[in-house]
């Protein structure tokens, strides 16, 4: 599988495309660098199956270890967080993207405008277009895509990955090192 180029073949982006994260440490460096990240978890997070469970279980771990507030956009992810008794902010994805595009927005619990928005588990094309909106109209914000498919409209994105590699990367991030 090629690691460059959009996961969806025809959804070609550019000239400005996401930096491909080939070393997992880059993600952890980003998480250390940004003061106010937010993790946005989409509806596919409870469908995508990796070696160690559903994608959402990795994301919940990452959020916990790195103390990142979580937005769940949908029913299944919200229920998952309720079941594991962890807090998530339920906000539809189009609304959170619109809020993130506003530099004057005070943040999900009024604790400041996020400076890094991490997206995972969204339908590919929808994430592609929302990230494009933020790329062009939210210069104050950086975006990071944690998907198995490269999302070129983000500022930073994982490359196209097979599920083993995706598992390894998410597990590494979840160790919080």
């Amino acid at each position, binding site marked *: *599988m090629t690691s460059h180029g959009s996961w969806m*073949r025809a959804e070609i982006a550019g000239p*400005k495309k996401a930096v491909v994260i080939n070393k997992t440490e880059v993600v952890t460096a980003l998480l250390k660098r940004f003061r106010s990240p937010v993790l946005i978890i989409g509806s596919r997070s409870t469908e995508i199956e990796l070696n160690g469970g559903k994608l959402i279980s990795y994301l919940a771990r990452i959020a916990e270890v790195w103390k990142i507030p979580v937005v769940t956009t949908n029913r299944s992810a919200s229920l998952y967080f309720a079941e594991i008794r962890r807090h998530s902010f339920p906000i539809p994805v189009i609304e959170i993207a619109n809020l993130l595009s506003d530099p004057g927005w005070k943040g999900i619990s009024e604790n400041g405008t996020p400076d890094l928005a991490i997206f995972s588990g969204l*339908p590919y094309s*929808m994430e592609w277009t929302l990230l494009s*909106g933020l790329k062009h*109209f939210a210069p104050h914000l950086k975006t990071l895509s944690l998907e198995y498919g490269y999302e070129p409209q983000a500022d930073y994105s994982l490359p196209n990955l097979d599920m083993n590699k995706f598992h390894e990367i998410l597990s590494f991030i979840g160790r919080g090192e």
Partner: protein
Amino acid sequence: METGIGFIRDLEVSVGHMNIERWDEPQGPTPFPTITTFRNWDRQLLSRYKPFYMPFCDLCCLCTFGKCDLTGTKRGACGITMAAQQSRIVLLASCIGAATHVSHAHELVSELIKRFGPDFRLDPGGLSVGVEAPLIRLVCGLKPETLSDLETVVSYLEREVTSLLSATHTGQEGDPLDLESKVFHSGMIDHVGLEVADIAQISGFNFPKADPDAPLIRLGVKGIDTKKPVILVIGHNVTPSVSIMEYLKEFHSADSAEVTGICCSAIDLSRNNKKARIIGPISWQMRYIRSGIPDVIVVDEQCIRTDVINEAGAVNTRVIATSEKNCIGLPDRTNDTAESIINDLVSNKLPGVLILDPLKSAQVAVETSLRIFEERRRTHRPFSEAEANEAALNCTGCMECVRSCPNELPIPDAIQSFRDGNPVNLRELLDLCNGCIRCEQACPKGIPVHRLIVYSGWEKLNNEQFTVRAGRGAIQDTEIRTVGGPLVLGEIPGIIAFVGCANYPNGGEEVARMAVEFAHRKYIVCTSGCSAITIGMYHDEDGKTPYEAYSGKFDAGCILNVGSCVSNAHISGAAVKIANIFAKRNLRGNYEEIADYVHNRVGAVGIAWGAMSQKAAAIAAGFWRLGIPVIVGPQGTKYRRMLLGRGDIDSDWTVMDSRTGEEVYTGPVPEHLFYAAETEEEAMMMAAKLCMRPNDTGKGRIIKITHYIDLYRKLYGKIPDDIYRFIRKKGDIPLTLKDSIEENLKMHNWKESPIPDPTRIRSYEGKSGESKR
């Protein structure tokens, strides 16, 4: 005619014969509006519902100055910004859609004038419809009575579409909001075009006239009688299809062939003749053509696969193109004798022909199918088990198909299971597949992926018989009188309209489920076009389709099909008629006041779950200008911009209270104008939320809030944090939720606010003045 608009003076000669004197309603301020007439109204809407752009491309390549990189804050060589460029693309799409509908309307009117003469009287609703053309009355200030009156309207529409399109030229309109205002104008023009088309065809082709009990039509492939010739019609302009039925009746018998259809031509044909069979929505083209069942395919216009000739050729089906707009490379045989054309098709000298004469195309279609069908039945070889097995064996699991599939369907895994003797996974993909064939284009091994999916699912398809109620057309005046009060007061929680194409993210079942859910909750559920067909394709536990289980009357708890794409005019028309018939507001040339009424009082929402076309964009835009929100599915973000409100910014949500002249806070109702939902549950929650209006009475608001909270809970498992924004007085609180809502109010320092007599137009001056603010 007293009007400040030059155009209407130019038109005086041509409208001189219209019976304007017989219409005693005084002319309103804005008959035949131009592209700037409602700029202030549009800006009012856009000040709340700001565009959120999602460019599909960083570049602009519209002129030879380009390509220009518009990333971030860069401007193009012409000076345009990315924001304006996105609005320009939306305008282009909406212009394409409006032009398509207006041209379609023009052709229908011309054809009917040819058949019945210009003085043929319009009758879209018999005695039950007094306001026969609410949108034409509203926008043009005319009361059309004959077909030739509609020609006058069409001339105006064509002029506006041309002006709008010219605004997209390089170095023309460059301000995003001015472009958005023009998008709204294109939508309003589009809806008038829809109305022209539908009232013309209802009158001329004798469709159901506002009939809640329009007949149930057979839907699906089960039971097609292949002992007879089978004709397939695809497209939107019903004239060639009606001609086929007429020809059969006159020269053979109505039952001597199976006439089947896909998309809106099928819907409209079934309005003309209940014997027609609807096969499915637009996404069913490939599976049905490839089945080899149709002997002859007659295509007219819009949303037809452009490779129809190749696919039909592969199964030896003959094609007849009938529209100047869709000649698909075929030789024009319009002026040849029918016999010579039939001979050329029967002998396979030609795979298809273009015939720009509906009567002749009907004759050729019927006679050709009669002559070839037995031979075709003998020689047609369906995709075989051996071919399917061999194709599956070639799969390497490379994922290229998945990376091309809009729904990322798990094709390789399903093929692997099929290889292992389990066809279920492949079969299940059929329900989720949009029939785009991108998987086949992508497969490096040349595997006919879609064919394989259809092969696995065909038996199931062939065993399912559904029904859809024939499109009823307009809503009766008496129905409007009955529901107007409860709707405007909020006691019927809203009108939910399922419209648009079949590019569904998870198959059509979601649309059917949503329609049933809202009907069950006593909303008024309207359907049209491919969504109307899709909703008919499901059975409840009692084996009933939604159209069998729910009433077709425009009332709480109905599921009513207005008809095809062009019948969407009756949905916006119903909202407008509520203002006119129930609230006694003048319609004539009075768009702004009526839009203000609809936006503030009529809780209507459109859901276009699989919208993909430019026509769908134009239809949505027509709803936006009336202040009616539209929700699309996740693929809808590819329309490139949403119109989103910010409930958290209180100053965005004021209206003027007509009683006191004061600006008062209303809460974010409705919160968005164009919104993409990720999931079915989110769409339902949002639709319920967007039905709230400032005018709701306490009782009405309680009902709407109860549905909103319930659907929100189903989505997120708790009561919405923003509920305090929708409570104006304690009387708005549903008793059963009192404790949790009061806690929410306390947390947010809630204060009571008045229930106004709401208007937004009185917040700015006059018809041409600047905004007061």
